[in-house]
């Protein structure tokens, strides 16, 4: 895949990688981790080149792949021991037990991988990735096919790891996931990074708010004196929706409320709604595709 991008990831942050299918999220991760080759360009981790300093770089990185790939006939603990040894670390059973406890896998320690549920297998993948005490963790769609409760557990695990100082790069289809746990968001499409920004700042900058005004008496049409506000009347005429930019100097809310009263419309209720990261993401990708 042709990719042309430049991106810096800060130590200790959770970076959420968002992008549609085929955007290049997995390709990028695979290249950094050494699974796919780099045809040109340079990738450094902690100042070290991933090609020439591959040993030091890879010792620092843990990877949780998108597909559940595990030796089915081996036990959980042996799979995790194998990962630790493969990455050159000496035996440390206490540490491995700790990981299994954190991931709620301790009671399955001696169970064969093939007997575990999908969610448990995914957690075994995380345990394997953490077995060598990495400083950077790549999570490629870690909660795909995981139920809501487990997803929340996974988010808590990510939060714990972050507290321990692990830098986490997460790719996900679930926008709510990035919204819930990421510090910064990178949006990728067709091998290019469209945007990298602090999540809160991004939402504030690009966020549009909607105000929905429910009327006591349904209106047949938007009164002419309110034409400047680009109001949208609901099909049954019982509510008006006003969209405004939270960042503009004047939101126009006060004027709208005054003018509503002047037009003789009585309000029953007022609700506000902020656009989600999903709306922002869809908007960005659509714009890029155009």
């Amino acid at each position: 895949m042709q990719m042309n991008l430049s991106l810096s990831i800060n130590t200790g942050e959770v970076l959420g990688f968002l992008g549609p299918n085929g955007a290049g999220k997995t390709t990028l991760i695979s290249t950094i981790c050494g699974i796919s080759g780099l045809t040109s360009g340079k990738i450094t981790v902690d100042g070290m080149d991933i090609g020439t300093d591959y040993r030091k770089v890879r010792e620092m990185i843990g990877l949780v792949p998108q597909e559940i790939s595990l030796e089915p006939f081996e036990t959980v603990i042996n799979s995790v021991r194998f990962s630790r040894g493969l990455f050159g670390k000496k035996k440390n059973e206490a540490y491995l037990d700790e990981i299994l406890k954190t991931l709620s896998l301790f009671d399955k320690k001696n169970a064969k991988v093939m007997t575990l549920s999908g969610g448990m297998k995914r957690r075994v993948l995380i345990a394997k990735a953490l077995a060598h005490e990495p400083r950077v963790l790549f999570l490629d769609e870690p909660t795909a096919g995981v139920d809501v409760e487990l997803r929340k557990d996974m988010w808590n695990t990510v939060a714990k790891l972050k507290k321990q100082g692990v830098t986490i790069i997460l790719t996900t289809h679930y926008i709510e996931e990035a919204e819930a746990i990421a510090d910064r968001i990178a949006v990728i499409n067709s091998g290019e990074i469209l945007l990298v920004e602090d999540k809160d700042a991004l939402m504030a900058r690009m966020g549009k708010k909607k105000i929905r005004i429910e009327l006591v008496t349904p209106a047949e049409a938007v009164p002419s004196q309110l034409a400047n506000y680009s109001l949208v009347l609901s099909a049954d005429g019982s509510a008006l929706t006003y969209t405004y930019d939270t960042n503009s100097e004047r939101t126009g809310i006060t004027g709208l409320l005054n003018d509503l009263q002047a037009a003789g419309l009585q309000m029953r209720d007022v609700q506000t709604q902020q656009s989600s990261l999903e709306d922002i993401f869809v908007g960005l990708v659509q714009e890029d595709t155009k």
Partner: protein
Amino acid sequence: MNFQAVSAIYKFEMARFFRTLKQSFLSPVLSTSLYFVVFGTAIGSRMEAVDGVEYGAFIVPGLIMLSVMTQSITNASFGIYFPKFIGTIYELLSAPVNFLEIVVGYVGAAATKSLFIGLVILGTAYLFVDLNIHHPIAMMCFLVLTCLSFSLLGFIIGIWAGNFEQLNLVPMLVVTPLVFLGGSFYSISMLPPIWQTVTLFNPVVYLISGFRWAFFGQADVSIGVSLGAISLFTLACMAFIWWIFKTGWRIRS
């Protein structure tokens, strides 16, 4: 050298062997016993001694080689093909290991397994025939070298194979005929002159001949040529594997 990684791969692969210990030992013991019953006792009793060695004993080195070569290829090719098949190869590719460490781990484990099987067959042979090994150290060296070189070949086949059919193709269509036609059950001096010349193009002839020399002190080709051939074969396999990891052929996307 990342010794921890080599040891981790080796132990993980050996665990697979111990999980299926019964099949691993029973199958070669049974098939070897059948060979001895058929070729050694039933047919062998009607055959003349070959170069002064009773036929039942004469086929022992060939039988061990047949099993060791097949087992080395099967174990090593499966060992590396299975992670490719189930996707766990990602871990190997993203680990701080070089090609030599991966090869030592996988090929070392595969060679250990076939060495065990070779020794089990030798032990079984003692139950059927009288054996007096002339050069025991040389015999062990040949056995270990064969286990290693054919495990290297198996490793290459495992990386090359795109499916289970291909995985079985080389041992079945190439190795078994080469071993059978390489003098496992006869001395090549028993062949007409033209076929003796043709046979010399079969690399397995040199291995079986050298191995038989270690047993009985006599060989079809000189021991130096045998050693040279097996060393050359090992080096060629190593060079090919080095190239595989350098280019990522069939393992890196």
